[in-house]
């Protein structure tokens, strides 16, 4: 912590005192409780859902099934395949066939087991490779195939190039299902308002998406639903579809009963039903010359989408664009498939398709370096993207600073990599502790890219005493988005942050700004805030210039004042605002920020995929006990491009949290699924990093101005979470002399004398 610069966020005091009210802390008069009903099936045709016995239980008000839905029971952000209440088939073990609504939550839970389901069991499709084969039974008949999507990159001629390569490495990699493990499980309260609007309070990260799910299930228009935001206990990409579906079910129960309804998930339900990080099977072939020049890559990826599409096409698209890591490769042939199975649904999770690819690529480049008799750093430097380089999708990296080498050099210097690399054990040590240091690098396209609609808006509404109400279509997921918006506004207007209140946005008073994912909150929302502030300033300058004896172009905003030419005259901000009201002018502005144009040709996989990029490098030191196989992390170092760190301590928090989550991904997180059923449904079995699993961490913020971002800021939430797994894999290799191609990395205790 920097003593002189204590962290600041607008919501910290309520959170440390317990005064912050999260969704489950809310109570409404006459409120009912709803709980989901699951079945034992993984894949089955539903014949009948009989709730008559459950209905008669004490306190039970109603039991809702698919037949009670006034709107459409299916929805989805890309493909409308998600059954908010399963009626025709059970497609995975987390499908909900009914919702029990009762006076108390305990009464609702008690009645669940009395809902009986008659169904005809079907063979479950659990292996995506099997599911892709022609003739496989279909998870969604209407889709016509189990292949959700197929993205490609076609660049140069990989086949031909391989023939000319001095070396070719072929390797398979596998990654696992991962749980987001936000500390707060899904929860929603729906309140029917007298004017007919359904009001929603929920733990979700996309109020506008939630509104679409709710309106669809209820069969009402978007204006008939108002989604309000409340503090929420973590998202990491995981509180979109499932969280929205929970809100939609609560809304349906509220609509049917005419009373407020709360639906709060137990952890077990959350893990069972919520979507996960995609497991990938990656077949990678990399060709390179004796001089360590990467010539060709051929890649085939099969991602298990689970039972519903969710955002699988977008997640796998990012994997496609970033399929070769941050390297200049002239010949690329890449095929990435998302495939339906009867496993748990997979979707957005912090990193969004990049952690899997980085795990493969960043090990491969080190394997290649070894083949060439070159250091890993030398090999990377011969191939890495630099200012003006062209990516594998044909995008020229200019217009922003390509800070990849800067990130690499600063991380390795801080970690002391070059001195320590020579001390690595490579399987041989005096005692039992094998030592290794390793690192990985990446680049990342900012925001959504060609994945979708990418714009945002903000409102600055100044009151006549000079205080400010600020609002942006960005959601506070816990990352400090609101504080960042306030700081950007304060900086632009030269008004102290204490005078600015962030107005909790509701879907009823700000236009749809898309989802707060893809590390786009600060860049997109901040861009809108900066643009709103700028348009407000030009309006103010216009009006106040005469009073300041200068031309509008000379007016400046700083230190709580508005200044004339050369600071000759000034007005205090509150006085100036008062003046404006006297002129019958509102100091009010609406700003938007549209992501600059991106392009994509789905056929060739070529285009300017993202409007700007960030770069990063992470290193780790560890020991592996050669007897027990136990890995101990000694320290972790990260450097990432942040454009401009708007709220430094919060940016550091993103670094630390991202590295920690990456370490869990590398070492032990693994949703165990057997025959389509999740075994580890709570924190006593699903292990996320505890404080004692982690070492001290060092964070290095790189700041290069990016003209594409109005506020100067770029996102750091996801880049920080995409590198620790390959860094650990490389360090484990340097310690043990054995490569691990599967996540999580498991090192068997030694039996006999071999290397672990």
């Amino acid at each position, binding site marked *: *912590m920097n003593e002189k610069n*204590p*962290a*600041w*966020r607008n*919501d*910290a*005091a*309520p*959170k*440390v*005192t*317990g*005064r*912050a*009210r*999260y969704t*489950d*802390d809310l*109570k409404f008069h006459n409120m009912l409780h709803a709980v989901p009903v699951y079945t034992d099936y993984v894949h089955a045709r539903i014949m009948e859902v009989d709730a008559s016995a459950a209905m008669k239980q004490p306190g039970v008000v109603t039991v809702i099934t698919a037949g009670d839905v006034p709107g459409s029971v299916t929805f989805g952000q890309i493909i409308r395949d998600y059954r908010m209440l399963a009626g025709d088939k059970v497609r995975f073990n987390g499908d909900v066939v009914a919702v029990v609504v009762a006076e108390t939550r305990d009464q609702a839970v008690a009645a669940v087991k009395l809902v009986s389901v008659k169904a005809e069991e079907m063979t479950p499709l659990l292996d995506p490779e099997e599911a892709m084969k022609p003739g496989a039974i279909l998870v969604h008949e209407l889709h016509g195939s189990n292949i959700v999507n197929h993205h490609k990159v076609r660049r140069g001629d990989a086949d031909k190039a391989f023939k000319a390569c001095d070396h070719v490495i072929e390797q398979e990699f596998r990654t696992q299902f991962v749980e*987001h*493990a*936000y*500390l*707060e*499980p899904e929860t929603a309260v729906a309140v029917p308002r007298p004017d007919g609007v359904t009001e929603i309070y929920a733990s979700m990260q996309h109020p506008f998406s939630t509104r679409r799910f709710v309106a669809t299930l209820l069969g009402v228009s978007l204006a008939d639903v108002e989604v309000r935001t409340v*503090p*929420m*206990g*973590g998202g*990491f990409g995981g509180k979109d579809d499932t969280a929205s579906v929970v809100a939609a079910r609560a809304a349906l129960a509220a609509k049917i009963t005419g009373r407020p309804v709360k639906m709060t998930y*137990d*952890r077990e339900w959350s893990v069972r039903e919520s979507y996960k990080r995609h497991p990938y099977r990656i077949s990678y072939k990399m060709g390179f010359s004796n001089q360590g020049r990467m010539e060709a890559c051929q890649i085939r990826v099969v991602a298990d989408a689970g039972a519903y599409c969710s955002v699988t096409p977008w997640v796998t698209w990012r994997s496609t664009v970033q399929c070769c890591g941050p390297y200049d490769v002239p010949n690329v042939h890449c095929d990435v498939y998302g495939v339906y199975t009867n496993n748990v649904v997979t979707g957005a999770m912090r990193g969004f398709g990049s952690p899997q690819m980085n795990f493969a690529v960043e090990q491969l480049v080190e394997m290649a370096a070894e083949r060439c008799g070159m250091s890993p750093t030398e090999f990377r430097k011969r191939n890495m993207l630099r200012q003006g380089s062209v990516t594998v999708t044909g995008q020229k990296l200019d217009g922003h600073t390509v800070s990849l080498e800067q990130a690499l050099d600063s991380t390795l210097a801080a970690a002391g990599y070059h001195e320590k690399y020579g001390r690595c054990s490579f399987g041989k040590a005096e005692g039992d502790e094998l030592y290794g240091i390793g690192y990985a690098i990446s680049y990342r396209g900012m925001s959504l890219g060609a994945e979708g609609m990418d714009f945002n808006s903000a409102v600055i509404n100044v009151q006549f005493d000079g205080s400010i109400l600020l609002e942006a279509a960005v959601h506070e*997921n*816990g*990352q*400090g988005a609101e504080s960042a918006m306030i700081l950007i506004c304060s900086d632009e207007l030269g008004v102290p942050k204490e005078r600015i209140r962030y107005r909790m946005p509701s879907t009823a008073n700000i236009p749809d700004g898309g989802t707060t994912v893809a590390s786009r909150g600060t860049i997109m929302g901040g861009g809108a805030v900066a643009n709103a502030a700028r348009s407000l300033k030009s309006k103010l300058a216009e009006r106040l210039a005469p009073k300041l004896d200068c031309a509008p172009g000379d007016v400046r905003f700083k230190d709580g004042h508005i200044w004339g030419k050369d600071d000759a005259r000034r007005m205090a901000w509150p006085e100036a605002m008062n003046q404006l009201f006297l002129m019958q002018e509102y100091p009010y502005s609406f700003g938007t920020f549209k992501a600059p144009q991106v392009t994509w040709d789905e056929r060739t996989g070529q285009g300017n995929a993202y409007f700007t990029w960030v770069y990063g490098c992470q290193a780790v030191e560890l020991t592996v006990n050669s007897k027990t196989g136990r890995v101990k992390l000694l320290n972790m170092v990260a450097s990432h491009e942040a454009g401009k760190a708007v709220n430094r*301590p*919060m940016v*550091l*928090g993103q670094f*630390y*949290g*991202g*590295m*920690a*989550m990456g370490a869990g991904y590398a070492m032990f997180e693994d949703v165990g699924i057997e025959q389509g059923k999740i075994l580890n449904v*709570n*924190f*006593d079995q699903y292990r*996320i*990093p*505890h*404080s*004692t699993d*982690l070492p*001290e*961490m060092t964070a290095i913020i790189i700041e290069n101005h990016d003209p594409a971002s109005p506020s100067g800021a770029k996102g750091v939430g996801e880049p920080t979470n995409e590198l620790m797994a390959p860094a650990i894999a490389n360090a484990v290799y340097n310690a043990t002399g054995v490569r691990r191609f599967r996540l999580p990395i498991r090192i068997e205790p030694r039996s006999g004398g071999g290397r672990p």
Partner: protein
Amino acid sequence: MITYINGRRHELNVSDLPKNLLAFLREELDLTGAKKGCGVGACGACTVLVNNRPVRSCRKTVADIVDRNVLTIEGLARGDGSLHPLQQAFVDAGAVQCGFCTPGMVLTAHAFLLANNNPTREEARKAISGNLCRCTGYQQIIDAIEAAASHYR
């Protein structure tokens, strides 16, 4: 039967005794600072102090607090509403993100600092090892505990 919660005396009924402590605090006393993250004693979000020792309220019943002093996060701030130095340290260190783990984390740290007012970072790290945080990687939480220690000396 009585208990003391945040310094206030509460009469308990026999019918209260078997109730789950977390549910009792949240539902009946509206002390919603304690959170339910898992319900099985594995995350620490529901931590409250009983006679200055951290307990997981999701695994306790009201019977466990008879004649005891219970401190919940609502009782830690000063009487005038200003933050306790430990809470301030959490704010200043950037130790708060989503905040769902925060009440349990602050209370665990408080109990720890009452017992050890000059800890090393390693000791602080061990002290919070039973409290899960998915957001922060714990680094700034440990910073906060370190910074607050002098106020306990």
